[in-house]
Structures are given as C-alpha cells and as structure tokens.
C-alpha cells in the first residue's frame, strides 16, 4: 500500500509530527517515482537543496528539478531574481504543461506555505495542480499528476487541516511505537468506500522503503491460526431464532396495551347508573368548618 501511494495520482498528504518526522518518507517516495521515470519537481521551502539531495545517487539527483525557496523566499537578501509569484507562481507554472510524462510534485513543506499564504488560495492552486489530468479537453495529452505534501500537523488548526484533507486523495499519518515507524494510510478512491490501513516501515540510508511486519505484540491476535474462532452464540440463555409454530403463537397474541375496536366499544358504552352517582362526604371530627375565617387553624 505504502509503495503504491503515488499510483492513484492526486494529492497525497503526509502528516508528520515532531517525534516522527516525515521528510525521509517523502524522500523515499520521491526516489521511487524518479526511478519509475517520472518527472519530479520539488518545491523546497524548508531545507536547502544540498540537504534534500543528500543521500540520493547522482542518477536520481539528475532527474530531480529543485525549485529553491529556501535561500531567499521573501527576497530579503536580494541575491537573485525572485521567482515571479513566489512558490504559488512556481506551482502554477508546473500546471502549464503538455507532455504526457507522469509528474510528481513534492511540496516540502505544505506547512510552510500554509503559514504564509491564505488557505483558500493554496487549496485552489493545489486543486488545479492535482486535478489537471482530469480536466476535460486536454486530458488526452497530459499525464498523471501526483502531489506529495508534507504537513506538520501541530502547526495548524483543525480548519486548514480539514480543508486540505478533504482535497486529498490519500492521507498518510505517521506515528510509531518502540522506535518503529508506522504509517496510517487513508485512501479515498472515486466511487468507492475509503480504505484505511496501518503499515510498518523503515527508511534505509539510501532512501529506499523497507516494509515490515508490525511489532509482534500488536500483530499476535490477528496472525495466530491455531486458536479456533469462538462462536459467541453457542451458549446463550435465550432463543435467538423462532420455529414456525412459535412465530404463529407470538403473532396471534394480543398484548394488553394494544388498542382494538372491541376495547374502544367497551370504553364508549355508557354504563347504567353512571349518571346518578353521588358523592358522600362525612366531615372529620377536627375539620374546620368556620366559613368566616377558613385559615384560623394555621396559627399565623
């Protein structure tokens, strides 16, 4: 599952945390798509180009196009000409392409962009970039686009994260226990139920992905074939199923609170002597019958 994340295309969110950083997984996925012969663009805002390219061999490095927004993103240093339109301009420029080669765009990181740009603008651009292959008209000439966005979850409120995750085709949330990294993958395919899955992995020094079995403690209850499954319905103190006879008997029974026409008739028929009833009242010995002051026994 983890190794076929980019097969679907669309936006893939990598949600990481301080304890479980996601850049190595991003680099592993970038390496994978570079090896598949895809065109790979990297929008680098958080680390330098050298640091990102570190660990890749020259063959892969040659296939990566690095758009450097790390050195001077706000044009403070004025070292070189800033990219027109900033990072979003670069993203939009990636949209305008006509070649049929599949493209992977890695955003390192989406959090950097989200902190500095309006959420709606960013979502619109992301939508335009990740859905350009499904545009009517030129769909035949443009290849599949995958956008990999690294998102540091702690930095954003639920609103922007929710907006991005509703845009995303696939969400990968990183976590782990006992030094072992895991990825929880939520995948939404069009017209299908979303699937979710947890996978354990590690990243090798050359940034290839190594899928692993989970820690033995967790996987034991699911993997042991020797324990026969227990049927919880075998030793019940009540009947779960009825025979035909029992069902008929149940259906013919009239429950005491059921309102029938006979019952209605019986209630509406006037009984003899009902109209001439009397109330007999016998006063108590200590009753106060003084009409002048009815409250004189209250001792106020």
């Amino acid at each position, binding site marked *: 599952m983890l190794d076929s994340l980019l097969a679907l295309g669309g936006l893939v969110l990598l949600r990481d945390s*301080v*304890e*479980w*950083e996601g*850049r*190595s997984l991003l680099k592993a996925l970038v390496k994978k798509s570079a090896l598949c012969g895809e065109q790979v663009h990297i929008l680098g805002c*958080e680390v*330098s180009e*050298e*640091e990102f390219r*570190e*660990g890749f061999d020259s063959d892969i490095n040659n296939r990566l196009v690095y758009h450097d927004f*790390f*050195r*001077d*993103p*706000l044009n*403070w*240093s004025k070292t070189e000409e800033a990219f027109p339109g900033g990072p979003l301009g670069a993203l939009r420029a990636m949209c305008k392409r006509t070649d049929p080669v599949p493209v992977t765009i890695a955003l390192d*990181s989406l*959090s950097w962009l989200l*902190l*500095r740009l309006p959420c709606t603008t960013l979502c619109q651009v992301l939508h335009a970039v990740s859905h350009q292959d499904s545009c009517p008209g030129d769909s035949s000439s443009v290849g599949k686009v995958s956008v990999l966005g690294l998102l*540091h979850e*702690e*930095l954003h409120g639920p609103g922007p994260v929710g907006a991005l995750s509703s845009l995303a085709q696939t969400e990968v949330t990183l976590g782990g226990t006992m*030094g*072992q*990294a895991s990825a929880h993958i939520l995948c939404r395919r069009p017209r299908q139920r979303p699937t979710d899955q947890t996978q354990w*992995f*590690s*990243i*090798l*020094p050359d940034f290839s992905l190594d899928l692993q079995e989970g820690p033995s403690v967790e996987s034991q209850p699911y993997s042991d074939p020797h324990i026969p499954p227990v049927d919880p319905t075998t030793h019940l103190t009540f009947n779960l199923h009825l025979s035909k006879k029992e069902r008929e008997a149940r259906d013919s029974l009239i429950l005491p609170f059921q309102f029938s026409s006979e019952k209605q008739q019986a209630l509406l028929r006037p009984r003899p002597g009902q109209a001439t009833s009397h109330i007999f009242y016998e006063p108590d010995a200590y009753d106060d019958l003084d009409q002048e002051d009815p409250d004189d026994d209250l001792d106020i």
Partner: protein
Amino acid sequence: MFVELNNLLNTTPDRAEQGKLTLLCDAKTDGSFLVHHFLSFYLKANCKVCFVALIQSFSHYSIVGQKLGVSLTMARERGQLVFLEGLKSAVDVVFQAQKEPHPLQFLREANAGNLKPLFEFVREALKPVDSGEARWTYPVLLVDDLSVLLSLGMGAVAVLDFIHYCRATVCWELKGNMVVLVHDSGDAEDEENDILLNGLSHQSHLILRAEGLATGFCRDVHGQLRILWRRPSQPAVHRDQSFTYQYKIQDKSVSFFAKGMSPAVL
C-alpha cells in the same frame, strides 16, 4: 560549559557538528543554564559568536560566564563575540534618532511586518572577514530568547521567517550553528507561542527540553532534561532517539543522573 552535558550529547568543543540548529525549550522551570552552557561552549570552541540577548544584561551573562571559565568582555574586545543587548538597545531605539535601521527597529514602528533589520544585523556580525588567515572556526548564532519577540508584538510567522533566514545564512551558507531558546508556557491558549515552538521543533536537529518536576519543587533535583535527536538523514531505526535525565544545578556545574537516581534519594 558543563562537561556532563557534553558527555550526554557526545560532543566536545573540538569536534562539534556544524550546520545544526539546536532548540532549547523550558517548561515550568528556568532553562537559562543551557544558554550559558552553549555560550561558553562555543567561545571555547573558538567560534565567532553572535549573541542576541533579549532577557538579561551583558553583565549578567558576563558574571555567569566567568564562573564557567570564559571572559565575555575579553571575547568582545577580541571581536569574537558580538553582543546585542536587547534591554539597552530597546531604550536607544525609542529615544534616539537613528540614521540606519536599528536591529530592533520593529519596536519603533506601529505595524512592523518583519524582523529583517535584526537578520541583517546577524548577517553583518557573522560575515566572514577577508583579512588574512581565518581567526575563528565557524560562526554561531545564539538567541535568548525568542518568546520575547512574541511578547514585543511580533507574530509567530515573522519570528519563524527570521529564523528561516538565519538558518539559510548561518547554518547553510556559512556552515555554522544556531542555538535558540523558546519558553513553553504549557498554556493551550497561547497559540502564537505554540506555533513558534512547533515550527522550530520541526526545523531543529536537536531539541533540549528542560522541564520542572511534575511533583513540584525539590532541593536535590531541579528538573529533568529531555534530549530528542532529529536526524532525518539516518534510517528510521536510529533516528528520533529520546532520552530523559534529571539534573541538579550546582554553583559551577550541573550534574545529570538517570530518573529517580539522585544521590540524595539513593
């Protein structure tokens, strides 16, 4: 410089890694002993140090530095230390007319958007000088502390931008190191501080987090220090290691011990 802390971090002034950002963070305790440690560490390593001190005066750091065996006054005269004294400069910014932008210019402007003047001060201070042989090994930027900038009215993103540029210049271009301190208020309502702290945590290579004891004040254990390594270039098995030690601050040193192993307890 505390030798025990160097042992825990597996470093010495002679063989420190370069191009790294270290985040110091304190929650419910005072983490300034870490700032004093790194100040004396890098002065002893013969680095060119730019110290942006917004919390205490020069004489305060100087007195503590003397106890740790470094003379800040001499370092400043030699040109090894560039000291920005926030407390004094703040007064200058407000009451004196400035010809060129002051590093803390944002104090004067009602809606200053960024910390560009402060970054330019840092860049100017750490710029390599071309005169003859290199006197200093590599540049280092120290900030004590960044939370003050938030209190002075800057937004978290503006402070993150400042750190971004410092990283690009000091860590990447000049292959130097950065050490910054941020308070963790532990208050869920202080969103700006949380954004700053988390944003920096994601960028740093090493996080040292000093925490007060959950059980309250203690005479023999002053707090605990959590060390979190973030090494993105290494395989998952060896990265993100975290250790926790308890510490006791003494007159001229800090002793560290495993949790619950204080000499006073045993």
